[in-house]
């Protein structure tokens, strides 16, 4: 069978000499090349000073601003050049995103499949995706552990049934013994949209309240454990109030083991009654937070020889500078509890937006904390949300080994590195499919296209995955399957299944950055399910 090829806006060059030319030189050389090309094609360019030592250099093609990024990979002696659309991206919907992606692809078609620049004698060659290099997850299993009896089906069949029944199969798999405690400061009894929300939730358990939002903390503190286990606090308000509430108080409820859900009143008015997908998302997320996930995506067991993943990330925002460790199991029924710990005594530096450094003493302290978090001998993979110094990684792995925690591989994940667009979704058969193409470049780098649907700007791009450790290992399809499972594990966002892009642990740390954790003594432990 012939394999279909899909063009991308990514170019790769191998460095011919022993020394790698500096990035600014390569960028300068490339910009000269593009300016000549723009002159020849009659395209306009944008060149202005953006911020400190940063230049905005763009070419306008068919009304779309095309920006480019250059990245060097010294280990593999590679240079990446990627083109992406630029502009007021947050306003773009599906059709606008599709249009700009097509324009950038067309721009690259005109630019040619090879770009030669004098700096370092680099020849950039255009990269393509192919059907052959893709991961088909349609036969992964979805289990419904709370239906009677617990059943399973293949992901492909499950998604088909979900579409055909308009999410009815999901509503049927939701356990009904729940208590929804509603808190608000505006929408009390009789005031819409509270009655709408009550009507929807009452099909899945008891709806209690609404109570004054200000009393939620006291109410939560007094709640008996027996009730707490089957309860969730639902906050119904306008978006700005919810945001403040989320930022300042979510951590209080999480650390008291009370699941919370924040619902914008506009969502209840405009979406919940009309769109079953939004209803399914809401209910699945709430039940998962309560520890009763109605659906679980199981990856084939041959992928997972290890016990789980440890994700390490900084938790930095304007109000705090903390560090977090998260442990998640990869095997079915792998372990008792999945937890996130946040530390305030792990000191680190972030020399760039994408890198992180620690002293040896801090790595030592972190290793001891991880040993306490995991608490027993296991074989794990480590995920990093920032690029770490090699010595730091080596030291951490050595320390964990002493505590009998064996590390198999260390990956660095990024959704912003070398962003490029591709033609994969221009084929209608690939739209919303369960086949995810990838491209392995060099020994340790891969791009994995985790979205097979476009709604917002980030859906256009692939996920950057770099194997950081062991040094002599090569990244394989198996590694990418593991990461893809971590991404699609968020199946509780069922309506957004095809646009899920980031791995769950990375997503959780991103959420944590939106919260104000406040003062913590040594560490704060939160069950992972509450932070999804």
């Amino acid at each position, binding site marked *: 069978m012939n394999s279909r090829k899909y063009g991308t806006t990514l170019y790769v060059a191998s460095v011919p000499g022993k020394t790698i030319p500096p990035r600014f030189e390569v960028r300068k050389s490339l910009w000269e090349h593009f300016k000549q090309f723009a002159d020849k094609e009659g395209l306009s360019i944008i060149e202005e000073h953006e911020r400190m030592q940063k230049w905005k250099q763009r070419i306008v093609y068919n009304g779309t601003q095309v920006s480019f990024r250059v990245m060097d990979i010294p280990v593999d002696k590679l240079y990446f050049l990627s083109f992406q659309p630029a502009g007021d991206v947050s306003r773009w919907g599906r059709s606008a995103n599709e249009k700009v992606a097509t324009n950038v692809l067309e721009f690259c078609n005109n630019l040619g499949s090879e770009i030669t620049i004098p700096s370092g004698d680099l020849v950039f060659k255009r990269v393509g995706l192919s059907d052959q290099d893709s991961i088909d997850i349609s*036969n992964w*299993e979805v*289990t*419904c*552990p709370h239906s*009677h*009896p*617990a*059943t*399973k*089906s*293949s992901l492909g069949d499950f998604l088909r049934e979900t579409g055909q029944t308009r999410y009815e199969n999901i509503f049927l798999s939701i356990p009904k013994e729940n208590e929804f405690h509603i808190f608000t400061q505006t929408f009390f009894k009789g005031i819409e949209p509270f009655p709408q929300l009550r009507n929807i939730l009452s099909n899945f358990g008891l709806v209690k309240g609404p109570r004054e939002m200000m009393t939620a903390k006291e109410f939560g503190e007094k709640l008996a454990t027996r009730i707490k286990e089957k309860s969730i606090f639902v906050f119904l308000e306008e978006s700005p109030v919810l945001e403040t509430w989320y930022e300042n108080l979510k951590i209080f409820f999480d650390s008291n083991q009370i699941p919370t859900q924040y619902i914008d009143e506009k969502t209840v008015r405009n979406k919940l009654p009309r769109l079953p997908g939004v209803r399914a998302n809401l209910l699945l997320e709430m039940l998962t937070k309560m520890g009763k996930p109605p659906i679980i995506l199981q990856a*084939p*067991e*041959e992928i*997972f*020889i290890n016990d789980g993943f440890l994700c390490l990330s900084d938790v930095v925002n304007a109000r705090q500078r903390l560090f977090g460790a998260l442990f998640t199991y990869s*095997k*079915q*029924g792998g*372990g*008792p*509890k999945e937890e996130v710990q946040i530390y305030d005594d792990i000191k680190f530096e972030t020399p760039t937006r994408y890198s992180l450094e620690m002293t040896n003493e801090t790595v030592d302290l972190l290793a001891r904390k991880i*040993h*306490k978090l*995991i*608490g*027993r*001998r296991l*074989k794990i993979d480590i995920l990093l949300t920032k690029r770490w110094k090699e010595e730091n990684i080596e030291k951490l792995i050595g320390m964990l080994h002493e505590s*009998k925690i064996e590390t198999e591989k260390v990956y660095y994940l990024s959704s912003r590195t070398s962003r490029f667009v591709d033609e994969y979704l221009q084929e209608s058969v690939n739209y919303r499919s369960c086949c995810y193409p990838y491209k392995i470049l060099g020994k340790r780098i891969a791009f994995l296209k985790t979205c097979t649907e476009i709604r917002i700007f980030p859906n256009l791009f692939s996920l950057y995955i770099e194997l950081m450790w062991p040094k002599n290992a090569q990244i394989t399809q198996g590694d990418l399957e593991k990461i893809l499972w971590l991404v699609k594990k968020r199946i509780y966002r069922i309506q957004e299944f095809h646009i899920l892009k980031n791995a769950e642990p990375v997503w959780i740390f991103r959420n944590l950055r939106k919260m104000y954790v406040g003062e913590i003594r040594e560490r704060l432990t939160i069950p992972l399910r509450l932070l999804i």
Partner: protein
Amino acid sequence: MRLVLAGEELAYPHELILSASNRYLSVIKGQYRTRTKLLANLLNFVLKEKREKIKIEGKEDPALLILASLTSRSPTSLDDRISEYRKRLNELMEDYQNTQSETAYSSFINFLKEGIFLHILCKEIRRSTVFLKEDISKFADILDYRENNLRAVFSAIQIWGTQKYDAVPYSIVFEFTSFKDEALREAVIFLSYVLAVDYPKSKRELLVSHYMLVRQVVNEFKDVVSKENLADQVLENLFKVAITLFFCGYLRTLRLPNDEKTHYIEEIIHLPSIEYSLKKTFDEVASISLPYIHFKVPLWLLLAIDSILLVLHWFNEIYLPLEISQLGIKFPTVNVPTFLFFAFLISVFMLFRLYKLKSNILKNFRRGTIE
């Protein structure tokens, strides 16, 4: 495949065994976890002595390796696997002792509970044991207050096959009667059965626990066995229960010659079950249900009411009209046949229940449960 016998689905434990066995091919050839496939293979092996070679993913899990070795042709491999299991268990115990963490404790306990089923399998199929005497006493020191069920199971394992005492220690009987831990259910079904054979003095109490659990599993799987696309966890439980029931003889006895079967019923099932059924029938012979009201009337109370009504009728016949004026009670003539009528109704009801008693007991014998 759905089995229907005597007009009832899954009326007997042996149907559960056969029904689980019928899933063998679909599990072995389908997309299921290695553990599920190994348990299906093991059931097929104990039932028909047929085995399939299953590829083991995650070769580091000693529990999976033991399951695989039980059906393997090489008897030596099992001992190696058992030593690996013990090594891993000791490592988990060390982890807990070093860290004192809840996670380490849970991992240790879960692994230990898995080992109990493996111990029963190894002993029944290959006469090997997973736990040694010294292991058990070592673990007993670590178990916390929540693990009384597990303690009782360990004590039962220690006395299984030894006939050390006249009767089974009361702590075991007590824990088995009020047993709650789902992870140990198969072990308790099996141990209560074998100890009842080993210790005749405790037979009655142990078999009550045994039948209670058998009834529970049969009820649990009644609606399950006919369903497709069962989750791996459900299938694994089904296979484990089916293997356990097979070990308890629920399939073999049906194949016995008639005199052997009678002997089996008399020796193992008959007496305690009859006693229990009769006691229950006499205690709760009548069940009266009205909307919002549900209560049961014991037989002795019905007899007492019947006698009172007959006495009242006799009084009315002699001293008509009956008047106890001091108490202000008067029975007019029209009520006289009422006493007789109600007495007659209750007598008919009691006769009906006694008539049904025989068929109820027989039905419960066939099901392997007691009502």
